[in-house]
Structure formats: structure tokens, C-alpha cells
């Protein structure tokens, strides 16, 4: 009997489905790759110059001037916007990531830049901030003092979880998921799990240290990080974007390019809803109510009734960037890059707008939100 034939003919489950899923991931990864340069092309710069010249000529014409006027109106934003972020409407402290580095905004509006880091996130009780340099994880105090650093290649998505006295940080080094204790010791490639998708891992609030992350295949793994025991692993969901735990740790929301998936305590989702175009999501503290960003809208949906019609909370012209709930769950911060504004929304009629955000956080590109943390 020939072993080769037996091994080649042994039926393997899900082979065709797995091949299709994997090919979609490989194709997407390949599309993001820059090909090896072959030779210089002079056509593209020439085309770009021609396009710029055409746009300038069109803008100079009377109809063109009219179009530009309407564009300016569109992005002008909320008219009664405050020129400075004088104070946060609710308690807590806001972490803002600008191209200059992370900034902490106190309740009274005072701002402090922490240093030349990126992608900063709060520790669970706001005692520290974890941030990244291209090849380093850095823990700093809110005053900007460096607590510790850990050199690792291609660091992204550092997230801090745990209790006040026992914390862990998960981060990606390339596509490998790592975990390090809150004092910077004991860094490990977490349990040899499969490569992680470029999605921030999410700690379940509180203890034990339970982490959810998405693999490149789109599976969600939930594991007890200290014991390296896998609690559950979901079926694959293509193109994962965001993972969020509710504050009671009983719901986990996965946002993909075209789905919302609500998980409870096991791998089988509580509900899956086809819902294209959601780019950010946030659980309201102490509830299972979700705020979702889709284009220029903020929608509200209950994670326990995912198929119910969503309520529109808010709408702007252009696209919304991110959302973040205040620690008490009463205010929603909505970033509006096209208008260069932060909007603090309590209800559609109660909005506090702040303009000139890019300038206030060091210039360059519009900043992102690292979190609105816990009252001191």
C-alpha cells in the first residue's frame, strides 16, 4: 500500500472554503504590497501636472469659483463653534493622537503634549499611557515621564487592560500578537497564536486578563492571556475592522467591512447583521447600546437587538472620523475632519462644537482620539 496515495486522498474538511478565504486574504495583502520597481515612468508625473493645471484653470473660471464656494460651505462645519477646546463638557481626560505626538486634555481644557509617540492609549484607570514608536513600546505617565520602554519591531495597536494593580499590555509586532506586564516585564509572543490582522486587540474589562483579537483569516480568538487557554474561537469573518467590549464584558462587537457581529460567551455569535460601511463603533458605558459611525452619520443600535432598525443620532456633511463616549456615558465626542472640528453631542439639539482642532494639536493632519478616560 502506498502511503503517499493514502495521505493525498485522505479527505480534509472545508478545503474549498478555506482555499477561497485564504486566497481573498492573500490577494488583499498582495494588493497592498509595493511591487519591485522595474523602470522609471515619466507619464504619471506628466499626467498629474496636466490634471492640476486643468483643476486650476477650472477653478479660475466663474462656474469653478461657484463650485469652490459651495465646497467651502460644506466643510465650514457647525457655525457656532468655539475657537478653542476651553473645557470638556463632562469629566475625565481626553487623549488625542496628532502627527506631533499624543496630547492629554484635562477637564479644564489644559493640554500637554507627551512626546514624539504615536497611537497612544490609556491604561485602565488612566494612570499611564502606552504608546508606540516605530520599533518600541513606551509607557509614559500623563505628565510625560517615561515609565519604561521595550524595543520591538514594527509596533502597532498597543492596548492596556486589567485591574488597578495587575495590568497587561497587548500589542502587535508586525503581525505577531505580544503581551507584556504593566511594568514592562515578561514580554511574550502570546501563546503562539496565529498571525493577527491589523485590528487593535481588545481587553475584556477587569480580571482575569481576557483578550480578543482578530487573525488574518478573520477569526476572532478570545483567550485567557495568563493561562494561554483559548476560551473560544469564531468562524472567519472577512475584513475585520474593529473589536469592542461592552463595559460589563458580556458583549463583544466585531465590525467588518460589511457586517456587525455580536458575541456573548461563546464562539457562535448572538447575532450577525449585514451592515456595510461602519468605520467606528463604541459601546455606551454601563450599557449594551452602541454608537456606530457610517459615512456622515452616527447611528444608535442595541447590541442585544442587532437586527432592530438603527436610530440616527446625528448627521453631518462629509464623513465622520471617530466617536468616543465620555466616561459617564452622557456625551459623545464626534470628530469631523472635513470641518476641522470636534463635536460634543448630548442630543441632536445639544451640541458643543470646537473648531481649529488641527492647529490646537500641533498642526499637520487632523488628529485621532486615543480615548476619553476615567475621572481622576
Amino acid at each position, binding site marked *: 500500500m502506498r502511503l503517499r496515495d493514502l495521505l493525498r486522498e485522505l479527505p480534509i474538511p472545508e478545503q474549498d472554503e478555506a482555499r477561497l478565504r485564504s486566497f481573498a486574504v492573500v490577494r488583499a495583502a498582495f494588493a497592498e504590497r509595493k511591487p519591485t520597481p522595474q523602470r522609471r515612468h515619466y507619464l504619471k508625473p506628466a499626467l498629474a501636472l496636466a490634471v492640476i493645471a486643468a483643476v486650476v484653470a477650472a477653478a479660475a473660471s466663474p462656474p469653478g469659483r461657484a463650485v469652490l464656494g459651495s465646497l467651502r460651505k460644506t466643510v465650514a462645519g457647525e457655525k457656532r463653534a468655539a475657537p478653542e477646546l476651553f473645557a470638556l463638557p463632562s469629566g475625565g481626560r481626553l487623549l488625542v493622537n496628532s502627527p506631533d505626538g499624543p496630547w492629554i486634555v484635562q477637564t479644564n481644557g489644559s493640554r500637554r503634549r507627551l512626546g514624539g509617540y504615536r497611537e497612544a492609549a490609556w491604561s485602565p484607570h488612566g494612570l499611564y499611557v502606552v504608546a508606540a514608536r516605530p520599533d518600541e513600546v513606551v509607557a509614559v505617565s500623563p505628565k510625560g515621564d517615561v515609565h519604561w520602554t521595550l524595543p520591538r519591531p514594527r509596533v502597532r495597536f498597543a492596548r492596556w487592560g486589567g485591574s488597578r494593580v495587575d495590568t497587561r499590555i497587548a500589542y502587535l509586532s508586525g*503581525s505577531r500578537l505580544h503581551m507584556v506586564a504593566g511594568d514592562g516585564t515578561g514580554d511574550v509572543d502570546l501563546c503562539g497564536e496565529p498571525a493577527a490582522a491589523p485590528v487593535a486587540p481588545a481587553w475584556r474589562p477587569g480580571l482575569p486578563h481576557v483578550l480578543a483579537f482578530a487573525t488574518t483569516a478573520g477569526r476572532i480568538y478570545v483567550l485567557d492571556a495568563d493561562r494561554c487557554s483559548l476560551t473560544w474561537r469564531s468562524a472567519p469573518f472577512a475584513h475585520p475592522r474593529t473589536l469592542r467590549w461592552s463595559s460589563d464584558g458580556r458583549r463583544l462587537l466585531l465590525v467588518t467591512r460589511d457586517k456587525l457581529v455580536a458575541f456573548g460567551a461563546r464562539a457562535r455569535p448572538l447575532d450577525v447583521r449585514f451592515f456595510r460601511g461602519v468605520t467606528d463603533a463604541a459601546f455606551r458605558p454601563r450599557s449594551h447600546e452602541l454608537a456606530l459611525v457610517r459615512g456622515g452619520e452616527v447611528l444608535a443600535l442595541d447590541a442585544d437587538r442587532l437586527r432592530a432598525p438603527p436610530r440616527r443620532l446625528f448627521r453631518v456633511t462629509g464623513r465622520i472620523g471617530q466617536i468616543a463616549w465620555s466616561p459617564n456615558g452622557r456625551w459623545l465626542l464626534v470628530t469631523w475632519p472635513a470641518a476641522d472640528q470636534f463635536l460634543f453631542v448630548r442630543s441632536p439639539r445639544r451640541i458643543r462644537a470646537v473648531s481649529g482642532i488641527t492647529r490646537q494639536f500641533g498642526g499637520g493632519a487632523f488628529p485621532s482620539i486615543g480615548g476619553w478616560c476615567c475621572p481622576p
Partner: protein
Amino acid sequence: MAGASRHERAWVRGARAGSAADVEALFRHHWPLAYRAAYLVVHDAAAAEDIAQEAFLAAIRALDRFDRRRPFGPWLHRIVVNRAIDWARARRLRAEISDDGTIERAAAHTRPGAADSDARALAAGLSALSPEHRAVIVLRHLLEYTPGEIAELLELPRGTVNSRLRRGLDALREAIGEELQ
């Protein structure tokens, strides 16, 4: 074989230059055996999918560094089998709840008859082996590497490869009850 390797070099060259069609050709040619090899080592469909996929992603990322004079297959198989062994070792160290099919369940899908009993017996025999033994069996008898090549791929002494092969085959022979080639 020479034709296949000529095609393969052309695919790698095309992929480096940005051709999605050549990446697809590489994927179609190599993925089935990569997935099968991973599955036979880890006995877990989801993990095998992740391992084969990661191996391809690693290959895509390293295309620019890849030596085009060398064949693509062994490079990919080295990644797949080593990751599969790592995964299987890690799983031994942790409790896990898996709702995926096992290799035994896969064998149950075969049609009734002599082939069915052989598949079941082979599945049972493989399950009883350690991941390290399964890996050398898979490399030798599925992917058809010589013991010398396996030693190089797994960075093991050749004697270790030979002894694992011998022990693995003995165990499978016992499970199947027939002489294996």
C-alpha cells in the same frame, strides 16, 4: 517537473513585478498541498487554514528577498511545517475548546469500502503520533522530500529524521495492519 519549476520561476518573477495573476498561479499550485500538510500535522482545519495562509502571507512579504534561482515549494513548506509543529506543541500545553472537525471526523466522510477503513486507520495512526513524527511523515510521504532535505528543512540531524521516520512508519503500519511503502 522541469516545466513546473520553469513556470514557477516565471510566476515568482511576475509576482515580484506586481502581477496578481502570477500570485494566483502560485497560490493555486501550492496552496492545496500546503493546507493538507498543515492539517495532517495539526489535525485542526481552522489552524491548518491559518498556518497555510500565514505561510503565503510571509511569502508575499518576502518576495523581494526571495532568491529566484531556488524553488518556491521547499521555502513555503519549511514555513508551513515548522509553524504547524509550533502550533501543535502549543496546543498540547493548553486547554482548548474546539468545535472544528478532527481528522477522525474527516476520515468518516470517505465512502464505505476498503478505502474507508484504510483512511480511518491512517487517521487514527496519525493521531497517535507526536507532531514531530507526523511532520517528518508528511514531509517524506506527502511532499516527497528525501531524508537529507527534511533534515535541512527542519534543521535536524539526519539520524533524527531517519529514526522519526522509522518509528512513525512502524506505528502507522501497526494501525493500518499492512505493509506501507
